[in-house]
């Protein structure tokens, strides 16, 4: 096994860790960095629970080698809120009961944030397609879509 030293910026803070070359970024974030808000639902890019941003673009961290993250910036659910102030998406997910078990929630929040940064006023259809890479088995997506709509509205006010 050959190791790799990875220097990254995670949620704004510089962070270094060593890992085997074949380790995924998902495993490193969970097991070496301690960011267990990033979830594994499938490990094959089909469920979106491990969604993060890598240099600002939305990816499944299970489909990224940790070694690839060297020199890059990572954003996870742990970095969404601003200190004690929740991100509007986080607020609206709670207000709209957009989660039941909550395991998919971190991934949905990251995906929804990526969507709203590109498209501040998405239609219902655009929201549904943008979130199609995130599986939720509890809610039937109804309240998730409504929460994203509400957050988009809130964010447009600012």
């Amino acid at each position, binding site marked *: *096994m050959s190791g790799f030293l990875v220097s990254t910026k995670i949620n704004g803070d510089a962070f270094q860790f060593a890992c*085997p070359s*074949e380790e995924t970024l998902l*495993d490193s974030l*969970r*097991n070496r960095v301690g*960011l*267990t*808000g*990033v*979830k*594994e*639902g*499938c*490990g*094959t890019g*089909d*469920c979106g*629970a491990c969604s993060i941003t890598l240099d600002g673009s939305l990816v499944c961290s299970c489909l990224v080698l940790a070694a690839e993250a060297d020199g890059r910036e990572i954003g*996870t*659910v*742990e970095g*969404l*809120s601003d200190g004690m102030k*929740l991100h509007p*998406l*986080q607020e609206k*997910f*709670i*207000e*709209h*009961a957009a*989660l*039941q*078990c*909550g*395991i*998919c*929630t*971190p991934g949905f*929040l990251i995906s929804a944030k990526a969507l709203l940064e590109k498209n501040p006023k998405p239609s*219902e259809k655009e*929201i*549904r*397609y943008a*979130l*199609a*890479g*995130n*599986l*939720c*088995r*509890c*809610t*039937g*997506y*109804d*309240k*998730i*879509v409504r929460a994203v709509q509400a957050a988009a509205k809130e964010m447009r006010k600012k």
Partner: protein
Amino acid sequence: MSHDTSYTKQKFKLIGSRVNRPDGIDKVTGRARYGADASAPGQLVGKVLRSPHAHALIKKIDTTKAEKLPGVKAVITSADMPDLTGGNRSMLDILENCMARGRALYDGHAVAAVAAVDEQTARQALKLIKVTYKRLPHVTDVDKAMLPGAPVIHDWVFTSGVDPKPEKASNVVQRNQFGHGDVEAGFAEADVIVEKTFKTEQTHQGYIEPHACLATVGPDGHGDLWVTTQGHFHFRQVCAALIGMDVAKLKVTSSEIGGGFGGKTHVWMEPVALVLAREANRPVKLVMSREEVFKATGPTSSTSVDVKIGAKKNGTITAAAAELRYQGGAFPGIWGMLGAMTSFACYDLKNVQSVGYDVICNRPKVAAYRAPSAPMAAFGIESTMDLVAEEIGMDPVKFRIKNAAKEGTQASYGPVYGPIGIGPTLKAAQNHPHMKAKLRKNQGRGMACGFWFNFGGQTCTDLNIGVDGTVSLAVGTVDVGGSRASLGLIAAEELGIEYEQVKVHIADTASLGHNDTTEGSRGTFSSGMATIFAARDAKDELCQRAAKMWDIPVSAVAWKEGKAVAKGKRHNNLAPLTLKEIAAKSPNTGGPIAGHNEVVADGAGVSFASHICDVEVDPETGATKVIRYTVVQDAGKAIHPDYVEGQFQGGAAQGIGWALNEEYIYGDDGLLQNAGFLDYRIPVCSDLPFIDTEILEIPNPNHPYGIRGVGETSIVPPLAAIGNAVSNAVGVRMTHVPMSPPRILKALDEAGV
């Protein structure tokens, strides 16, 4: 302590409001800890080696090379998990499902396990274990497994419920018959008889969180298990019994649970993790991969169902019969029995008979999945109901209303109903604006009804009041979908305090008495009941303390609107004492103030739903899109309407997935071909419309707040509702679920449409 459980028609201040859930912030910030999120110093990685065959003799397992690999701390097989069940066959089944004993019974059956210092070493160790198999004939189809020449999977299974008792072993575990009246006479009276056979494929609960646990067992025989489960008390009992531990020495903590829907009511690899931890004398974390979840946990039955319904031209059903064959996987189950019990439960039938068969196949052991067994039976019955309505030229909703069960109806599964909600849900569906909406070309509307029992069970709750007047409520029913919010509302309502003053915890097995598993839609029903009684217990104590503070007899103190008030003219100068004021003085009036309750929460009340669905079918590709969906269901009192709606919507979405695309696909080799979310196609966000809900609140007379279970029934009608809608869209009756595009196109072809 016995309590009055009857519904009191009380006016609520908080119940019914849409407050934020107490665990919301943890879950939107990533702080909430699920099954795979715990770690312990020195923990090892556990991994399981699984059978690559559908059915095989395990002639030899050579673990020597794996054991010698540096970093491997334990390698186990069934030899390390001796049978301690004392002849309890159903417990032995669980043990054998956790680890094959001489025979691999399905693709993915565990045959050995390792614990090693890291992921890479554990993976390599699995590769070094050499298993010598001798392949045996297999069977994965329920109808084929019942045929006389089928390979018999267990030589100890003799069909029960048949007369005379069989002398030969077979794959048919049991026959269960339900019903009353004389169906032959009933069919003779009918003007119209429709007979049809239906098939449904096997589906998985599809929770997003794979099974995961962290197990520790010390040399003193004490153990700790952190696990994602719907029932940590049940897990403790089963694990302790299987691996020979004292129940009290095993502490089980339920992590946050990332979905269960019945699939996390059974142990799968937790006893294996505990044995590995004991062998290695180190904590072992065992997390299933998604492939393992599909192959080696408990999906629902595939089924084959015959339905026959006869009716008079005026719409009265004269007789109804069904034979239901349920594939239960490699071990005996009760799924066919449940299918037979639920099949005709929505209707008031003079002559009815349902016969359920439980059948063993070379597939993973079936587990409960949300209203287990009811959706498949409903698919057959509710599809046939539409066919009969069509034959007699009656509107299908009217036909159902005419035959709906009501108070006093003898249910097809035996008992006589008290007040029930099927009639009201049907009426509400009939009057719903959805029913009148216009349909376009290639679109069709369907509706269907569903039933589920609901149950309560053993429950134990602690309510502790802090000196600052805030309340800590410890419950033992795992919160699978927001029940902490509901229970917080109930405690606050009962005590007359603010919702924000209550913090609800899910206690571990060491901190509370036994609680049954969160299943059967019982979480809020039963823990809600225990919470009310615990709060009432605490209120008695608060009155005692107020009496001490005032120095008057307790008989002169009453609890009103969240305050202790002194009764009678002598005391009318005493200002009421708030809970906060009494709590503040508690150190000097007798110490901490608490309420406690243990109860068997029976009387959960049966549950009914009616669903309406519009679909659009592309006649050239057979693709079906659900364009509108409405759920009408009786919830009893909706404590937190958001989460009631969430249950309705989630159940409907699972049913839609099942109806259209989800299925286990086995090859002729008996191997599962689609053990992943790519090809096991659960609905994605863009597949679904908003799912409308209408909550009917018909209070449950057996619960002080009128609560009924709401979690399961909503998965029952969708298969049939969509089948009926597709049929109305394209004029072809679909009899095989899922109604995937190839099946629809084939049906269209065969019908010459």
